[in-house]
């Protein structure tokens, strides 16, 4: 008999900080809160914010990554990006960019030109998904998931839909391929819609209320911009939308390997970090024009 995952905490967003001049993010983990979220290493939440029109593109310049994947989910606004493997594109609302940095990549991310010129509302999530040791030095790859390519599960009675970015929801398979088992969905729920989400008890699990407000497991309420973090009991979560709501659900099987992190590198051992720094400095990550 499945039981509800217990709610460990309902977390308010931590104080924001700027990443470059284009992203004003609240870090939920690892610095905002020390919570168990392996295989997810980091979640930066750019809560809704208005950017004024500008001709100068705001963003983050060329920087490296090694040892993990960055997953960028756009809710409002548009981000253009380029990487040293020659990939480039724009992430519009509803799109997801799943970049496997693995052995090393350089990239840069800026507000898309038209968005910058017009200004407007901006809201995004960036996740760092760790890789198991055996894949950390694999070849980088890149999955550009435009919204129309993301699998959608329609909820009955026009209750909304679930965009299955990764994993599987009631037979609808996620669009992204992952290295370890991960469930990652955006739920777009109409007022009053109830859904049950399932993931094994040992998966580390949280959800973020992007819009609206919800009740969780019929007991607790979570409002816009709050994160609900779950314990490792039970396998089901009941969500009811108290108003039209958008919710990000993330749940993954822990990798349970040692972690050594410095800046944009996420490895297992300190000496691998030294190596990453040296490789970056000496051009082994390739080159990308500023």
């Amino acid at each position, binding site marked *: 008999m499945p039981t509800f995952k217990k709610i460990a905490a309902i977390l308010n967003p931590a104080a924001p900080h700027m990443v470059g001049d284009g992203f004003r993010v609240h870090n939920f983990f690892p610095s905002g809160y020390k919570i168990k979220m392996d295989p997810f290493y980091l979640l930066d939440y750019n809560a809704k914010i208005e950017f004024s029109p500008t001709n100068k593109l705001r963003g983050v*310049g060329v*920087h*490296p990554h090694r040892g993990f994947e960055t997953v960028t989910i756009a809710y409002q606004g548009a981000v253009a990006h380029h990487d040293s493997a020659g990939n480039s594109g724009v992430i519009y609302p509803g799109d997801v960019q799943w970049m496997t940095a693995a052995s090393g990549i350089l990239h840069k991310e800026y507000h898309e030109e038209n968005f910058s010129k017009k200004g407007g509302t901006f809201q995004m999530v960036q996740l760092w998904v760790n890789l198991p040791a055996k894949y950390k030095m694999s070849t980088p790859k890149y999955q550009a998931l435009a919204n129309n390519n993301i699998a959608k599960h329609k909820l009955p009675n026009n209750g909304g839909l679930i965009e299955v970015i990764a994993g599987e929801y009631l037979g609808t398979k996620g669009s992204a391929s992952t290295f370890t088992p991960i469930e990652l969905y955006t739920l777009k729920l109409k007022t009053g819609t109830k859904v049950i989400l399932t993931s094994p008890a040992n998966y580390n699990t949280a959800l973020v209320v992007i819009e609206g407000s919800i009740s969780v497991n019929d007991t607790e309420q979570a409002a816009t911009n709050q994160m609900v973090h779950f314990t490792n009991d039970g396998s089901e979560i009941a969500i009811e939308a108290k108003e039209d709501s958008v919710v990000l659900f993330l749940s993954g099987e822990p990798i349970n390997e040692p972690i050594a992190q*410095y*800046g*944009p590198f996420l490895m297992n051992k300190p000496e691998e970090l*030294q190596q990453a*720094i*040296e490789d*970056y*400095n*000496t*051009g*082994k*990550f*390739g*080159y990308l*024009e*500023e």
Partner: protein
Amino acid sequence: MLEKFQSYLKERLSITDEQAKEATSCLKSKTFKKGTVLLNPGDLRSENYFINEGLLRYFSIDEKGKEHILQFAPENWMISDRNSSVFNEPSIFFIDAIENTEVLIVPSHFFVDIQKLLPHILELNIMMLHNSIRFMQKRINMLLSATAEERYLDFIKLYPNLTLRVPQWMIASYLGITPESLSRVRKDLAKKHFK
């Protein structure tokens, strides 16, 4: 707060934990937000900064408004303006915080004051001074004679992680080359080493 400076002393002098603790007990730390200017031309400062956390920069600005970086001071480095701290003359340089920074304020008279407690501290101070001169000699030679690539390769040996912490133009300023030359150097290295 004091632990890093205590370790710094312990690594360089054969002293006990207790001696290190006693010697540093009078020192105070201070935090500066990113962007804070700690020293301006014309200021008099009788103190050294030992960096616990963060990053300081020692630089000048020329008549055209161009910045010239003489030194970066990341964790475990000590930085001071000798003109004012030793010769009591107004500084001609700036120090500012490139990151949120916590420093330990080490007064210039500290090394004299704690002699009784740490008899070898003056020798250490002299060694640090010689080291600083050696560093300057090498730096002058690099600026006079080395190619942009040689300067960059020397820089990443000295400050391996600063390439991840400071913008390119600051590294270029430190190396005495244009940001475009630095880009070229990095591009050439990538051509050689990227597989």
